């Protein structure tokens, strides 16, 4: 080890000497290489062709039965039940429970009353579920089909509910099941499914469930907006914490959908035409990757599958995408349709049949699961349909980013203090190590103190919205709160800088040391995140790591330069990015209540323990402040 490393005092090894010489300049190319690596991922040369890892699944190899008259009758019975004379829209749970019971399912209505942060996602509503008991086993495993009452685009999802009734009818006729099949309808969206899952798994809840089945192995969620016919289907995979379903599951659904002639594309994005130029292909793939990364990082994917993944259930959403110019979809988009199911004609019989058969075949395939999905990848990104990039293909990019932070930290750690410390002369060794240690003893407490102060502020930012009564937190107050915190933090930065300028003669702080410490810490955070949620790790690097590396890149002798540095850091601050980047963050999440990303993150943290909100408060915000301190101190 002495060959590679040797610190203050002893003879330096040649390797380390070379490393020290170049590490100052090496960190920028490393960061650039990490970014370039990511930019190369949309090139098809790096992709792998998707394949089935789990041979037992045998997708698309069974005779399909969906589409019989009894199934269509069951679908029609939903309309009949909902349109009963005197029925209010709020009575839908009982109507749905009647439909399920009539088909022969074990049914239960769960009424959830959540006094959670209103506006962020009130979850007062109901869940109805029915279970088809497996005739061939003892109810230790289950599959789940879920639908929300409204789609993520806030259109009615009554088509999916109808289809579920048909599928339930089909499933109760079928004798091959080795797993229970659970059908769930919720009218509270993702929080509703979350409440249902809590109750199903016996966690403490206000509305416990009594009708339960086995461990849920896999789940499909359906989103079928009003339309006459669908051009294709979209698959949405990303869970709330960035978890993904096993790649085998995605492959199975895509494979079966292709057989049924209603292809299912990742995020509904078609592959580029065969004759497209390389550049066009690149653009299409890059768009798909960007969408996935956004959904994964912020947990803003469409569909109610997202909470399921947290419970170790492989889940995805199958969403119908209407044809361009579809008359029903056009009318629905203008908001001319009432929510009355009578106004919502079913899609054409061929479409219903194709979707129903896709789900049927997928369920039959999942029925073959011998144990929990484990064969194929859990860590992947999909650059195109039927192609994948595994963790080994994209993690080096994050590795390069972390390395660039660490290299710069090493260099700065080495560069702290006067130049005489870095001599190689053995005669001055004792003097050097004593001076060096005295320097550390003097400056480390102040550096660590600054870091702790910035994080204490972040902790306040994190804790206050959790502790205050939820009713206070409206759009206006949260904006005001953010603004106040921004003022408080910037004045703290100015105060710290002021204190150290006054003591500049004592050299009580060394910005190199402070920066090195912050870089070490950010590197650990990004490295730990990268295995859990690579998109979030990349996002964190872009908003914290990159500005940190570039902070005080050139000298800050003049006031003007300091002011420019401060202005740039303000531009990269969380307040700024969350205000300007609202559309980027909320792009796939056009829910009107979440008009500020901060509140959306807070809501996700509240309901799904999503990591984004604590990361913004405890890493992004404080590191941004620390960068400002680094620019401003002597």
């Amino acid at each position, binding site marked *: *080890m*002495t*060959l590679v*490393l*040797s*610190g*203050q*005092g*002893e*003879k330096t090894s040649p390797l380390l000497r070379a490393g020290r010489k170049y590490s100052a300049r090496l960190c920028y190319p490393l960061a650039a290489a990490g970014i370039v690596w990511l930019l190369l991922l949309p090139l098809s040369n790096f992709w792998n062709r998707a394949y089935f890892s789990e041979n037992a699944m045998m997708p698309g190899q069974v005779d399909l039965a969906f589409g019989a008259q009894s199934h269509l009758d069951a679908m029609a019975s939903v309309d009949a039940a909902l349109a009963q004379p005197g029925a209010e829209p709020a009575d839908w749970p009982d109507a749905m429970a009647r439909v399920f019971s009539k088909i022969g399912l074990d049914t239960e209505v769960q009424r959830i009353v959540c006094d959670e942060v209103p506006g962020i996602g009130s979850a007062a509503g109901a869940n109805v579920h029915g279970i088809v008991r497996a005739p061939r086993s003892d109810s230790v495993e289950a599959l789940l089909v879920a639908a929300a009452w409204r789609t993520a685009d806030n259109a009615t999802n009554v088509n999916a509910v109808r289809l579920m009734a048909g599928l339930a009818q089909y499933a109760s006729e079928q004798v091959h099941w080795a797993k229970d099949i659970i059908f769930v309808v919720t009218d509270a969206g993702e929080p509703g499914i979350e409440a249902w899952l809590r109750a199903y798994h016996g966690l403490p809840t206000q509305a416990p469930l009594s009708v339960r089945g086995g461990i849920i192995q896999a789940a499909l969620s359906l989103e079928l907006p009003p339309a006459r016919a669908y051009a294709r289907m979209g698959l949405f995979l990303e869970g709330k*914490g960035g*978890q*993904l379903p096993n790649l085998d599951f995605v492959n199975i659904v895509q494979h079966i959908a292709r057989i049924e002639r209603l292809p299912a594309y990742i995020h509904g994005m078609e592959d580029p035409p065969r004759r497209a130029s390389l550049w066009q292909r690149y653009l299409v793939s890059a768009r798909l990757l960007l969408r996935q990364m956004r959904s994964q990082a912020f947990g803003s994917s469409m569909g109610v599958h997202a909470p399921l993944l*947290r419970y*170790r259930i492989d889940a995805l959403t199958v969403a119908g995408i209407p044809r361009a110019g579809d008359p029903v979809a056009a009318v629905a988009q203008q908001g001319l349709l009432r929510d009355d199911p009578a106004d919502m004609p079913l899609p054409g019989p061929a479409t219903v049949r194709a979707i129903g058969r896709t789900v049927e075949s997928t369920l039959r395939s999942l029925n073959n699961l011998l144990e*929990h999905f*484990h064969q194929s990848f*859990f*860590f992947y990104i999909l650059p195109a349909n039927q192609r994948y990039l595994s963790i080994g293909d994209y993690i080096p990019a994050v590795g390069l980013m972390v390395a660039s932070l*660490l290299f710069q*930290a*090493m260099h700065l*750690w080495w560069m702290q203090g006067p130049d005489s410390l870095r001599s190689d002369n*053995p*005669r001055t*060794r*004792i*003097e050097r*190590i*004593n001076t*060096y*240690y*005295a320097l*550390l*003893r003097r400056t*480390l*407490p102040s550096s*660590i103190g600054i870091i702790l102060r910035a994080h204490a502020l972040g902790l306040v930012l994190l804790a206050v919205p959790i502790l205050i009564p939820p009713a206070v937190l409206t759009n206006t107050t949260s904006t005001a709160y953010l603004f106040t915190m921004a003022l408080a933090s910037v004045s703290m930065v100015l105060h710290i800088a002021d204190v150290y300028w006054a003591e500049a003669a004592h050299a009580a702080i060394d910005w190199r040391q402070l920066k090195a410490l912050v870089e*070490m*810490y950010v590197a*650990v*955070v990004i*490295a*730990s*995140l990268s*295995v*859990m949620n690579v998109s979030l790790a990349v996002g964190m690097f872009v908003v914290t790591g990159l500005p940190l590396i570039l902070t005080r890149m050139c000298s800050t002798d003049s006031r003007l330069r300091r002011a420019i540095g401060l202005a740039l850091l303000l531009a990269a601050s969380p307040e700024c990015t969350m205000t300007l980047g609202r559309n980027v963050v909320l792009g796939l999440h056009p829910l009107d209540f979440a008009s500020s990303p901060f509140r959306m993150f807070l809501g996700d943290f509240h309901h799904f323990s999503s990591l984004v909100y604590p990361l913004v408060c405890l890493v992004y915000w404080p590191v941004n402040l620390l960068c400002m301190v680094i620019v401003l101190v002597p």
Partner: protein
Amino acid sequence: MAPKAAAARAQRGSGATSAESGRLAWALLAGSALRLGIFLLFPGLVAHYLSGRVELSTPVTSYKRLVEGLHLSAHGVSPYDGGVFHQSPLLLLLFQPLYYLPDVFTSAVYVAADALVALTLAKIATARKAGAAQQPPVPGETVFACAPSTVAMLYLFNPLTVATALAKSTVIFSHLSVAGALYFGVRRRVDLAVVCAAIATHLSLYPAMLIAPLALLAGGAQRRTGAIVAAASKFVAALVLLHVLCVAAYGAQYFAATVDFTLRVADLQPNVGLFWYFFIEIFDEFRSFFIVVFQLTALAFAIPVSWRFRQDPLFAGTMLVGVISALKSYPAWGDLALFLGLLPVFEDLLKYLQYTFLSANLLLYGIGLAPVFWHLWIEQGSGNANFFYAATLVYVFGQITLLFDLGTAMLRRDLDMRRPEARAHVVVQE
């Protein structure tokens, strides 16, 4: 790195002593208040989250298992029936009265134990400083000595220590006995030091390695062999006495459930050590052989370390605490906390450390990645055992880097003091 954060400047003069003891009292109070506050304000965090973490509590230190043992023995069943409880009967004796009292008393005992460890470390630092003042410093060096209050503060406010106390890991009581043994050793109270070492050994077995340094520490520089033999025989006598006491109280079963359990690594629940993964994989016929190999790897360090650093037995003891933390069969983050707490006592050595950047980073990654990989493996199901073991390897590698660095620092400083003419020479180990 933490010791260097010591802000307190060296205190001189008699007036400074009272200020120093006041500061020590404040440090202890603040540390205790922090722990008690978290215990009282966030009982859910402690009960549901921290106490179940494998990084903080192991089968031999888990509080949940202790409660189980207490419950069994309160109902007249042997606590060692059922194979859940693997802790020393001494802990049962200590906690039996607390079992009938509200939870807050148990929390208070943990807080008090942690504060006592910090106080003992501070006292060791004071004694060490007094001893070091008699030695001539290396010519040309600035003398640094960490103030005792800073030593206590660095121990009490180390996140690993706080987390260990909040998880109510019983390793704290083992730490208390180890620190007590070292303290009585420094104060030359052989008998008390040996009794503390025996209790520590009874609690977690590995502190038996410390007996030679303790004997040297308490017995002085003369008649080394005689001092070691005398201390070792007293140690064995104390252990036998403890054994008889425990057999009388809880029956002979306890021995198989504690000592044998630790030596045989019978529970392969993952932890931050090296044993579990290896023994999950190994074929049964090689098991006993590799258990001997692994345990010897840890225990055999007692001899060379005690021998090489016989001039400074307190340092040898500290090194062995580090070795135990890295190589014992059921380690937890709390073990590292004691080693890191002892480091600032040797502040004159810290400037000789050469790989601080490397070891600090390795420990940071080892500690940061372990919960993430645990989440991926156990909670989310998308990772596997290799993930967590990789984090463990990084963590242990970081500890060993730090240990070697510290040993090298000691030897180099020794050379600087004894052979002033060699100061300008380069020492390279290849």
